């Protein structure tokens, strides 16, 4: 009888080049997505400008000047005009990117982590646990996200921390639901059964076999929520529930410039344009990520 097991195990690893990992492939494919790269460059520029705002911005974003209120775009010393208190718009937009990006990314990231845990566990274990979790999620899902964010923010009180908390709560249900539905599909695949048949426990199966197939679509979906989060955060600030004046924040700026819409419309829409460009860039990047994550390309 041939000795089957031993020589197989004893064989030294053959000198095959280590196969490039999955994420290396994603990066390589992302390199072919020109629109996504452009969007990524835009986001990178905004992030860099926000981080190095102290060096990039021409002036102090809070320095007011009653004489120079509502200067048009292109005025000397005011490249993008001045707001209703004579503050330099360009500086305010650059400094405002800090808080706007922060309030866009942080709630989505926290919700991505928590929502994935909730959704994947509900999808994988199924049964009554799934029913309990997903019906609870549905309760939150029943409210329009804007309404829920406003209600939570209002109940928790104004402020940046409370806005972030309420936005996180708003984003957990949709992320959990996506994670649950993808996990439910993956769970029934034969490779999950094959992993069970090899003796692996549920947590190892989730980590090794399920996570990689679920996290991609959930991540792409979460990326697309960053723009929603930025708009919602701006909305909260607009309503006076988020950032407080004179802190530069795009939503708040849009609110205070609202009164000037007939006098200096081009200056008044600038914060809106900043929100629009940033959220579009995040959406395009997430689209590119989604196609780059398809192994079949």
């Amino acid at each position, binding site marked *: *009888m041939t000795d*089957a*097991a031993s020589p197989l195990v004893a064989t030294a690893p*053959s000198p095959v080049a280590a196969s490039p990992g999955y994420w290396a492939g994603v990066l390589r494919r992302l390199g072919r997505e020109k629109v996504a790269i452009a969007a990524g460059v835009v986001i990178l520029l905004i992030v860099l400008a926000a981080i190095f705002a102290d060096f990039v911005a021409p002036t102090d974003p809070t320095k007011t000047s009653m004489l120079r209120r509502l200067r048009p775009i292109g005025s000397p010393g005011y490249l993008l005009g001045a707001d209703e208190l004579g503050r330099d718009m360009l500086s305010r937009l650059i400094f405002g990117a800090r808080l706007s990006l922060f309030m866009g990314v942080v709630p989505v990231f926290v919700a991505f982590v928590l929502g994935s845990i909730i959704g994947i566990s509900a999808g994988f274990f199924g049964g009554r646990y799934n029913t309990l979790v997903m019906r609870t999620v549905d309760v939150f899902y029943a409210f329009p996200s804007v309404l829920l964010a406003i209600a939570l923010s209002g109940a928790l009180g104004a402020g940046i921390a409370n806005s972030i908390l309420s936005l996180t709560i708003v984003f957990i249900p949709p992320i959990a639901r996506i994670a649950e539905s993808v996990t439910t599909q993956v769970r029934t695949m*034969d490779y999950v059964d094959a992993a069970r048949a*090899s*003796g692996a426990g549920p947590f190892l199966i989730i980590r090794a076999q399920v996570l990689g*197939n679920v996290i991609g679509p959930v991540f792409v979906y979460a990326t697309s929520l960053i723009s929603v989060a930025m708009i919602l955060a701006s909305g909260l600030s607009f309503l006076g529930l988020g950032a407080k004046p004179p802190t530069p924040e795009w939503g708040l700026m849009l609110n205070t410039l609202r009164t000037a819409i007939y006098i200096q419309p081009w200056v008044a829409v600038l914060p809106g344009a900043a929100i629009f460009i940033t959220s579009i860039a995040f959406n395009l990047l997430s689209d590119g990520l989604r196609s780059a994550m398809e192994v*079949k390309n």
Partner: protein
Amino acid sequence: MDTRATDQAPAAAILAKGDDRGGAATPLLAVSGLTKHFPIARGTVVRAVDGIDFEVRKGETLGIVGESGCGKSTTARLVMHLIAQDAGELLFDGELVDGQALPLKAYRRQAQMVFQDSYASLNPRMTIEASVAFGPQVHGLSRDDAIARARALLGKVGLEPARFAGRYPHELSGGQRQRVNIARALALNPRLVILDEAVSALDKSVEAQVLNLLLDLRQEFDLTYVFISHDLNVVRFMSDRVMVMYLGEIVEIGPVEALYARPKHPYTRALLAAMPSMDPDRRTEEAPLAGDPPNPINPPAGCRFHPRCPFAEALCATKPPALRDSEGAGHKAACHMAQPGSGHSRAPVAPETVA
């Protein structure tokens, strides 16, 4: 058999072949009263597998045939403990599976399965060597050892590791993927391999290659197969014994030549008559069986085959026939016509009444 355990490498010890505890006479797998009813709505169940008993002997290949929905795949998943049985027990080499002597994880090292869908059974985001190496790592092999073993096994199933090890499932053909699945099933050095329609999705030429590979591997790794298929020709080619299922029950089981040459159950006869033949003179023009199998939610009383059986009598509608061996050659059939003294007009005359 013990030569495997003498190897000093710890990696080899982890995946050493399970000892032959019960001896040659003990069946490798003994299934008794295995039952699975899937609830579909309040009070109604699909009787997918309804109290079946069978054995798989050491070193043999047991073929399981039957129409779609007869419970073949459910049986495979029950045997693999991928779904929980409602009743019945499994003895693996004389030891109760999931019991004190043989915990589930230890059993799973010794029994593996190859699934029908070669694509769905491989993680699309893992390279094939990672898929094959997963099981050994679960059982404590280091990553390097597991990868080395995976590459060696890929070589054994005809996929040159240097070319294929780092590929993803979608980069392979169906036949190549099924070879990977076979390598994965062998990665834990099991004693029993369940092949659930493992070649059914492959085209004929690839199917033949994979079948030959399976025969070679059975020899080399000293395996016992349960070979599930709806293809009677393939089952005949592969099997030592064949089990025919109908509506969640075993209707006939016996040595392959006896069963194909002298089928005792009218359902088996109908299946065999429906086999495609290369010889035009042997082709059947009419469907040997009318209609579809009855609904397994509410199977017919008595013999489950009686509504489609050309020889059904009043007895068949009331009394379920037992799976019994009338000749003592290990060829059992669950049909009143095969059992002396059953009361069916075509039953052989009972020896007592003759004497």
